Each structure stands twice: as C-alpha cells, then as structure tokens.
C-alpha cells in the first residue's frame, strides 16, 4: 500500500455498488424533476424564446438592427460563434483525449461534458447561419450539384468552417450517442410506461449487452475518440483561419491556431466547472462527481490560463517585433484605445484571476471556482470581442475608422444563445442519464486491479 499522502483520492466518494449506482443515475429521468428544475427551465426557455424572437426580427428587417457597420462587419455574431464553438472543446477533450490517455477520472464527467459540446456546437451553429445578409440563401455555402454549375469558393476560410464545424458536430454527436447506448438500454429495461419503453427501445438500437456488442462498442468508441481527438485540435484552428488568413492587422497572425485551441479548451473547462458544480448538487450526485473531479478541471483551467498568458505575450511580442505599423497600432488599441478596457478585462479575467487556482483551497471551494469560471467565461467572450471588433474598427485607412456599438438586439441574441444552451442542458438532465453508468462502474472500488507495492 502507498503511504497515506501518496494515495490518490478515490474517484467515487463513499461506498457504492453497481446496483446502487444504476438506481442513483437511471432513476433520475423517471422521476418528476424538482421544482428548481422547472423554475430554471422556465427561465432559460424564456430567454431562449427572446433570442429566437430577436433572430426572427433580424431576418425580417435585416442585419441593420444589429450594431455592425463599416468597418466592423463582424461583431457579436461572429464573437458568439467563436465563443460557443470554443465552449464545446472541453467536452471533446474530456471524452476523447482523456480516454486515449486513460485518465479514468473523466468517466464520471464525460457524458455531461460531451452533451455540453453538442449543445454548444448547436448554439454556435446558429450564428453563421443568421449572420449573413440573406440567410435564406445559406444553402449556397454547401457544395451541392446544381444546374447552374456553381460551386462554393474552396479558397474561402468560411468554406473551411462549414466543413470543420459540420464534421465536428457529426463526430461529436456519434461519439456521444454511441456512448449512450448501454445506458439507453438500461433505461429501456427499467421503463415502466409504454411511451418510455418505445422511446428507449428505439433509441437504444437493439443493444443487448452481449460480449460481441461490447467488443464492437469498445472498438467504435476508441476509433471515434481518435477522430474526435484530431477535431479538438483542428476545429478551432480552422475557425482561427477565418482571421489568420485575412489581411486585417490583428487577425493576420501565425499564432492564432494554437492560441484559439487553448482558449477554447480553457473556456470549455470553465463552462464544465460552472455547470457541473451546480448539477452535482442539484441532482445529488456529489458522490459521483466529486471534489476531485472539479479540482482536476480547475487544474486544467490553471494550465490553460498560463498558456493564454503566454499567447498574449507572444501576440504582443509579434506585434512589436513585426515592425508593422498597422499591427503596432491595432495592438495599442487592444490596451489603450476606445475599447482598451475590453483588452484589460480579457487579460485580468483570463490570466490574472485564474492564478488563484494555484491554491488548493480555492480549487476545492465551490463558490471560488464558480467565480473563477464566470470570470473566464466573460473573459473569453471579451477576448473574441477584442480580436474581432478592435481589430476591425481601426484597420489600414484611418479615414474609414469607426467605433462600434452593439444594439439591444445584439445583446438579446447573445442572452438568447445562453438561454438555448442551458435549456438544452436542462432537457438533457431530464431525459437522459447524466453519468455514464457503465463507465463509472469501471471506477468502482474493486473494479480495477489495485496497485500492489512490493517491499
């Protein structure tokens, strides 16, 4: 046995049997949710409806109801897109990369994080669709055979986005769904009402849990994890190409792909902490999603925060070292111009505040970690504001410079996107098992051979 100090904290708090675990997790969708769930759902759903109503208004009136102007052609629309795509990254990282690294602590939180990935990508997907001037022609961005012989422009980074995001969504959805199959089958087995029986029967795709099925399942799961791993790195890299391959000073930077990927994982983990720290309490699964899980997430946040700081320094160094007057000017605008406050907000929220996570007490304090996660979420949103709005509002010809002011519609749609995301998160908790029971069973005491110390 390892000495006490070196022994790892168990991944499950307290004694738990496989049956008790099933009962704890799988009974949840069968019960009537608590009042708090209804209240939360009513709130998020109304915010979501507000957002969709404003989107309808935008489609009816035109992009003019937003604050976008010339030179700031993109603003909240693309900020929100990049922000939400970023949020998705933690889920894929947890479920795929940590799976390949055999970090078993992921098992308890992977399901929820993956669901958040899917919902975040769905939320993100709204924005490219509605940000165009004529959204009813969005389908022109897809390469489909047509009698006009017209194809999209494969040199355009927006085109790459279409492929990157749709691939990401497809792979994430498959990965998540395949992971759900055993649990869906368990739910089917437990279902009492006819409706549930039918629904879970259809959804579980005939899963019987035979060794043959398990073999295929494990293979498919690892293959998809391999695919998803590549996507974690590629999707936000491609999103960053929207900026990096352009001419705009402040966008045209080679550091963008890794910088965006780190930022995405950073923001994603902050969202995971934000959601799970609440969910575990509300759903009474503190024994499954333990303080250790949250602390590990916080460590990832801390690491990413340091990398963000490095990226910011790198950007500043590049701006200075390039001797490019346009980039010099743009970078100065990040910290001193009209929106200099946004630049400092991003630095403080993303680099300074998360440094408190060096302290274990903070890492294990729920209010503190929620505070840090909120800061990171706001900071990462503003980081995209800095990159997109500040870079655009002062580009090459000073005669064209203009400030940007968001309208109430912009803000309403941003809020609506949060409403949409959290509504989906709540619905998920209502109808599907939020913890992968089969995977958690692998971390139950005694499920794995214990390490034996010799001598």
């Amino acid at each position, binding site marked *: 046995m390892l000495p006490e100090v070196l022994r790892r904290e168990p991944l499950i708090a307290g004694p738990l049997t496989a049956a008790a675990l099933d009962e704890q997790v799988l009974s949840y969708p069968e019960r009537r949710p608590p009042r708090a769930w209804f209240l939360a759902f009513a709130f998020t759903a109304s915010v979501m409806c507000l957002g969709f109503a404003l989107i309808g208004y935008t489609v009816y009136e035109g*992009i003019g109801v937003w604050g976008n102007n*010339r030179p700031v*052609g993109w603003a909240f629309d693309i900020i929100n897109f990049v922000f939400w795509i970023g949020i998705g990254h933690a889920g894929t990282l947890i479920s795929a990369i940590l799976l390949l690294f055999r970090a078993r602590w992921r098992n308890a939180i992977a399901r929820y994080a993956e669901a958040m990935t899917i919902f975040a990508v769905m939320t993100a997907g709204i924005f490219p669709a509605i940000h165009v001037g*004529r959204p009813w022609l969005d389908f022109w961005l897809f390469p489909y055979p047509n009698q006009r012989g*017209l194809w999209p422009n494969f040199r*355009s980074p*927006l085109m790459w986005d279409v492929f990157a995001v749709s691939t990401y969504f497809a792979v994430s959805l498959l990965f998540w769904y395949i992971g759900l199959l055993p649990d869906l089958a368990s739910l089917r087995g437990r279902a009492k009402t006819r409706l549930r029986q039918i629904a879970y029967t259809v959804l579980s795709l005939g899963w019987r849990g035979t060794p043959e099925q398990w073999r295929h399942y494990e293979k498919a799961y690892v293959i998809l994890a391999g695919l998803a791993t590549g996507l974690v790195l590629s999707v936000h890299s491609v999103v960053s190409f929207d900026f990096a391959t352009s001419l705009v000073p402040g966008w045209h930077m080679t550091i963008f792909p890794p910088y965006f990927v780190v930022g995405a994982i950073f923001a994603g983990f902050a969202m995971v902490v934000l959601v799970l720290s609440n969910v575990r309490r509300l759903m009474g699964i503190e024994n499954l999603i333990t303080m250790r899980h949250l602390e590990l997430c916080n460590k990832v946040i801390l690491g990413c925060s340091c990398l963000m700081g490095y990226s910011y320094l790198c950007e500043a160094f590049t701006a200075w070292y390039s001797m490019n007057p346009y980039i010099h000017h743009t970078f100065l605008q990040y910290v001193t111009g009209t929106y200099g406050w946004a630049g400092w907000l991003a630095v403080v929220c993303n680099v300074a505040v998360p440094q408190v996570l060096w302290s274990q007490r903070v890492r294990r304090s729920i209010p503190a970690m929620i505070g840090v996660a909120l800061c990171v979420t706001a900071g990462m949103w503003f980081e995209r504001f800095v990159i997109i709005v500040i870079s655009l509002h002062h580009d*090459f010809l000073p*005669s064209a410079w203009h400030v940007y002011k968001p309208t109430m519609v912009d803000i309403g749609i941003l809020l609506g996107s949060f409403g949409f995301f959290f509504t989906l998160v709540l619905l998920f908790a209502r109808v599907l098992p939020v913890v992968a029971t089969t995977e958690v069973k692998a971390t139950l005491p005694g499920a794995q051979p214990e390490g034996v110390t010799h001598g």
Partner: protein
Amino acid sequence: MAEPIEPDLSRREFLGVLGASAALAAGCSRPDRGEIVPFDKRPAGARPGNADLYASAFQEGLSAYGVLVKTREGRPIHVQGNDKHPSCAGKTSLRAMADIMGLYDPGRLRRPLVKGRPASWDQARGRLLSDLLGARAERRPVLLMTNALLSPTRRALVAALGKALPGLKHAVREPACGGAEAAALKACYGDARRPRLRLDRAKVMLALEVELLSGDRPEEIKGFAANRGEGSMSRLYAFEAGMSLTGANADHRVPWKPSRAAALGFALARALHQSGRPLPAGVADSVLAGFDLEALAKEQGADPALLRALAEDLKRAGSSALVVAGPALPPQAHAAAFLLNTMLGAEGSTVDASISPPAEELAGDEESSRFLLEAAQGRFAAAVFWGVNPAYAFPDAALWDSSAAAIPLKARIGRTLDETARACDIVLPEHHWLESWNDFEPSSDLLLLQQPAVAPLYDTRQGDDVLLDLLRGLGGGAPLDYRSYLMERWRREVQPASSLLPFERFWSSALHDGALRREAASRPPRRLDGAAVTKLARQTGAPAASGFELILSPGANVFDGRYADNGWLQELPDPVTKLSWGNAVCVSPADAVRLGLADGDIVELSAGGVEVELPAVVQPGQAPGTLGAALGYGRRAGSVAAGVGVNLFPMLAGSGAAGLLLPDTELQKTGCRTALPFIQRHHKMEGRDIARSITLAKSRQPRLTHSKDLATLYPPRKFPKHKWAMAVDLSLCTGCQACAVSCQSENNVPVVGAERVLEGREMHWLRVDRYYEGPAENPKVLLQPMMCQQCDDAPCETVCPVAATNHSDEGLNQMAYNRCVGTRYCANNCPYKVRRFNFFEYNAQTPESRRLAFNPEVTVRPRGVMEKCTFCVQRIQEAKAAARSAGRALRDGDIEPACAAACPAGAIVFGDLKDPASRVSRLAARGRGYRVLEELGVKPSVTYLADLSNPAGDRDAS
C-alpha cells in the same frame, strides 16, 4: 405493340386541371407590376434601351452651366457637363448633377393650391389676375420677389410685366451670396459686373477668405488644374479664417482674421509700391502708409518672411498674378484686391471683365427690409414670390411675419410646399428646370439654352409661363407660351443679321448644342476709381470688437437651403469638415481648449441680439478668434430638409450691413451635446503612407520609391484583351466631391440618412478622404478620392465563400449581387474599406417618383448584399458595344466612368493598361505615381499621383 396509354383524365378534366395549375402558378409568381404596351409604331428617333443626351442649362445663384441630360426611355437619369460650354468644357456644378433628384422629389406640388385647397389653374390664375388688375386700377404697388434671373429673356419678360403693371416692384434676392463684393465693384468701378477669374492664366494667386475650388466652381477648378502639374506649376496663397478647399489646396495657407484681410491687401500694395510698382491714378500713397506687412504678420501670428515672399512672388508674377477676395469680406478688402490686381497688371489678364454680362441688381437685406417694411404698412396690394424662400431665409423673421400678414394676396411660384408657400394664399406649382425652356448668359459671348428633357410630370407650369400668362391678362401682347416668347426673342435679337440660316435651322442647331457662342460687344476696359479705393482704404482699421468673427457661408452642398431637400446633397459631407446631414460652427483648436469644447458640444451664438444654438466642430486650421458656419440648413418644410441642421439666416439680422461676416459674435457653451453624423471620423494618417504630397523640387529628383512585386503563391493573372485601370492625380484633385455626386447618380447609390451615417453605414461608392497632417493650428490638408482599387490579387475575392465577388479577364473585381449571401467577410478583408453593405432594404424606402431617377443599366441592390465601385462597368460595356457596331477598335478615352466624367480638374483618368500609349498607362508610369497600401501585395489597379506643392523657397522650383 404496346397498348396506347389511356389517360385517366378526360379532355375536359385535363383542361380544368391545366387552368387550375396555371392559376396557381400565376398566384405564386410575382405580382404583375403594370401593363406593358409595345409601341404600335415606334416614335421617330426613339431607340429603346439607348440613352439620349439633350443639351440644356442649369442655373444656381449667379452662375449658369451648360449641361447634357442623359435620358432613358424619356426619363432624365443623369446630368453631366456640356462640352460646348467653353469655360467649363464638359464639367458642371455638383448641384446640377444632384438636382435631378429635385425633378423626382416626392414633395413636389402636383396642382395649384388656393388657400391651401387644390384648385385648377384657371381658378388660381383668375384669382391672382383679378387682384393684379385691381392693384393696377388702384395704382397700388405689387411686389415681385425672385432669385437672380440671369436669363436675358426672363429679364425681358419681367420688364414687360413691369410695363403692363406700373406698380410692380421687383426685388432680386440671393440671400447667401452677400452684397459686399457688388458694393465694392460698384464703388470702385462704377459697375457691379463680376469679372471672370482666369485661374488658368494665374501663376501666383492670393485668395483672401474665398472658396475658389468647391464643387460649384467647375470653371475655377479647371483653370486651377491647368497649372498644377510638373510642366507648369502655379503657387496659391490662401489667407482665411476657416479651412476651405482653397486653403486645403494652397501652397501656403495662413490662418487670418477676415477683419484684417483688407489691411493685408493694402500692406501688400504698399510693399509693391515700395518696390517700384506705380499706384493707379487717384490712389494717394499716403493712404497706404499705415499698412505694414511686418506689423500685420506680428499681429496675426504669421511668418513675416512668408508675407515678404508673397509680395515678392506677386511682383514677379505681374500680370500672371491674381488676387481674389471672398464674398464675406467687407468692401475694403475687395477694394484692396482690385488695387493689387490693377497694380500688378492682372486686370484684363487674370481678371477678365471684358465679357462679363451686366450684373443683376441684387436686393440686399437692407433693401429687402425696406420693401417688407412697406408691405407691413399695407402698401402692397399683392406679392408674388418666385423661387425665393423668404419665409425661411429672410433674417428678420418677425418683419417677414408682419409683412406677410399685411399683404392681402400672396402668390407663390415654386416646386414644393415650402415655408413661403405655406404662408401664401395662392400656390402655383412650377416646372423643374429639366421640364423648362430658358436661356442664360454666363458671359456676354455665350448664350446657354435650356430645353425640357422630359414632359412635365405633374400639372405644373413654368414660372415664366405664369408671368407670361399674367402679362397677357394685363393686356400686354404676348405669345401663348414661354417657348414661343423665347424663340421670338431669339429670332429678333439673338440670331445675327449676318446669319444666312433660316431661323428654324439656327434655333435647332442652338438647341442641339445647348450653347451659342457669339461676338461679344467690345467694351472699354474698366478703370479703377482711385479715389474710391483711397476712401475705402481710409476706413480700414483694426477692429475694436472683442468677440468672435463669424463667417457665414452658403452650405457647400445645400447652398442657401434650396437644395436642402436633396438626400444626395445632404448625405454628401462638407468637403472639409466631412460632416453630413446638418451644419455646425467651426471653432479653432485653441479656442476649443480655452472654452472646453469638443465636437458635438452645443453652443449658443449671439450677435446683435440674435441667439442661435448649434453644435460645434473643432476645426484644425481655423484662425483663433474666428468662427465659421454654413447657411442653408434648419429648413422647417421639406420631406428631407425639415429639421436637418440649424437655420443661421436669423444671425444675419444681427450683422447689419456687414453681410456674411459678423464681426462681434459671442459664443457660449450650453453643456448639451449631440452626436454629429461625420462621414470621416479620424483625421490623421498616423504616419502611414496613404496620401502622398511632395514638393515640386522633390518631384524632379529621381524616383524615391520602387514598387517591387511581392512574392505570391498564386500565378499572375492574365488579361488577354484589356486591363482597366485608373490614375488619380492628387495634385489636380481639389476635393470638391463632384465625382461622388456623379457616382451616386450613375450607380443608383442609396441615401441612408443621418441616423445610419452615425452608425457608420453610409453607402457612397466613392468617397474623398481628407487627412490633416502637422499642427492642428494650421495643418497640411491631403485629399484623396477613394474608390474600389480593383486589385489584381483582391483580398475580397479569396474570402467570399460563394465566389460572389470574382475577377474578370479585363482586370475588374466584379460583384455578382445575385450570388452574394452577405457574409461581409469581403468588406472586413478590404484594406481600403470601399465595400458597402445593404444593412436594410434601402430602396424599399425610395419613393416611387425617385425610382424614376434610377439608371436602368445598374442593378438596384437588395438588402443583405455587398456592393462597391465597378469602374462603371456599364459604361465600359456600352463603349465596347458602340465600338463594335462602328466596326472599330476601342480608343483611349472612349470610356469615361462617371467620376472621371464629372471631375472638373480632370484628375481622374481611366483607360487600358494593355495599351502602352493610353493616358492611364503613361500616368501610371510617372515618377510620382504610387499605389496605396502597395506593400500588402494586393496589386491595386488605381495609381495615385502624389500631390505636388510649390511652396515659396522650394529649391530649384518656382
């Protein structure tokens, strides 16, 4: 053998289904927009789909220009200069181009009104005529108030009316033109004829508080541009309070108080006299003794060496010198300018009064006040207000109100229900000038003919026809319509006796040309009255007032307010402040610091007991202690004009006789603020190499910059036949913005309104950027027209996901509006920011009548679509088609984009780079040619030629 297929439907059922599906299809398709009736027999000469050009003429204020009106299927769609007008040669005032909007103004009156009720012409005319007959019987006077007539025939008509109605008092008002110059001319020459300024002959120019280079002075811009190249370079000195385009283009600009302009003139005269130039007869040299250049320089904070250099330059230039004083300056300053021109021998050379037509007697504010006072006392039996808008522009509103109340019958001849029309009993709707006949005499060797380019759109009549009708009613024998009246006068007086042509041939050839050149009656050269100059010089002294000197000038675009209803002109920014949709008072940076003012602070101006509140703009280069503001805003009526800006005419009531210069104005901060719709909001180049300016001496050195083709991954583009390109000579460009108006008209560019301008969503395809470099007290101004640069490696093209913007094999960066989904990525990636996005369905707000002004050759863009300059691709295609049908190759100069066609300076040249002999190829290869942001590797097709300046003391130049 297969069995024949038995249809399930009977023939009857089939027809039923067919009918139903046809009805369904019709129901689903777009609604029928109207009946289409083909020509049964095509009218002679009508070629549907081809544009026709009609020569006509446009008058505003004291100027008239020959124009060509482009019509399509009978509707005027574009106005350009008439090349038969010799001094303007194909160029015209920007307002002539913009006023096509006036023709289609939805606010135009469509039928007469009597007491505000629609009436027939017979009723309205009968009412007016009976009152005029009554007035004649009672021997009571009748007031006729008009704008400057400028037309010999119209003048004859008014004279004839005066004969038939002996009590007719005619007052001519041009409220924004000022009367000081006419007063000075009258005093010093005995005749108020305004000489023509021959800037083309001038080598050294001194502009005293005068705007010579704005878009309504094509003649002066053209003359100025003649001497602004490497071959021949003039030198322009500008002494002015506010920053004008003249100052912006000057080689030396000195902020100078207007009250001291006269002193400067006399001091220069003294310096010239001391260096041996004789004074004209009657001018005592003792009178100049008090004027000393050194002392003045010290007083105004100017460089004395510069004033000495100016005196030296003027002396050296002699008869090629030109001194001009502005309309806001007092008569003393004008007299000083006359004196200088006479001493230098410029009279008869750069100042040419020999062919000036007789000056119109303008009724200044004082004289008009006298009329209105009489009216207020009930002296007049009736009044006719034709064109002028005293209810808006008369400074003393209380006097206007009381006189309007006391005139028993007021008739209005005008186009819209404006402020004056609202105060009148009878409103007679008038033709637009594009529906009218007339002639104008800009100089005594030239007559311009105005002819209708379209049949009257509404039940309106030409103002002259109304007068003619009254003349007939009053018993004066006259033809039935003004056209016959005009022709008759031409037959009688204009056709030279020596002409052997039958009159009809003579007339139709004059109509075809729109201009008739004739022998000017020779007049003896005018002589400067030395005694008058002496008298005025004696009255010149330092001002005692402690307040600000405020100069009011006609709005650069809206003039005296008569164009305030024109959206194009409202949205077109002031050429210097770049403020659109309204006016503001310009304050010097030093005064702004002292008073704690920033752009948009509302201030209260007060002078002579009149107080007006308006926003302030901190204007670099404004002389401390001076203010400047534009007239013509703050209209109370008009669908576009109402409520835009602040009416400053009431300030003139406080100026007394001083005209447009208010020597003692107080300015107070109110503490309120407003957002100003600037088209350009950042004014410095931030050390970037954007608009270049070099001195003449430097331009003669070997080329300093070498453009190098940057490495690229893409193969070079191939242009098999043509490579369209443009060259813009910044040395010739004065920043007048005529190009922008022409572009707006040619390309159906929408107007978005002040609110959208504030949001940064203006749609101009071509803008003129203005940068200030150097100290804010007196910066150097750089002006640069900026349009799509049609880059060979266009950054917009690679990023469009649907390939809506792509490259033609003739070097054009094209937009397929149909294909555009509106991601706006292209606009983000455009380093020149010339792409414009339709944030709303702008044309949904375009009134039906204004849609008639659309150019059918240019797509009207829907919402959600990106648009930008196309190099007027429709004109390229038209010229190619014309060349093909003529069986010849395209020639250099066949294609003129709207901007190039309108540029009075000829600064914009378009052509084919594949043709090494084309003008654009030669200009692009010039030493001072460069491409903006060339270092980005986008390979723009527009070459800018660096601005040349010719400062005094510039080595090996001058």
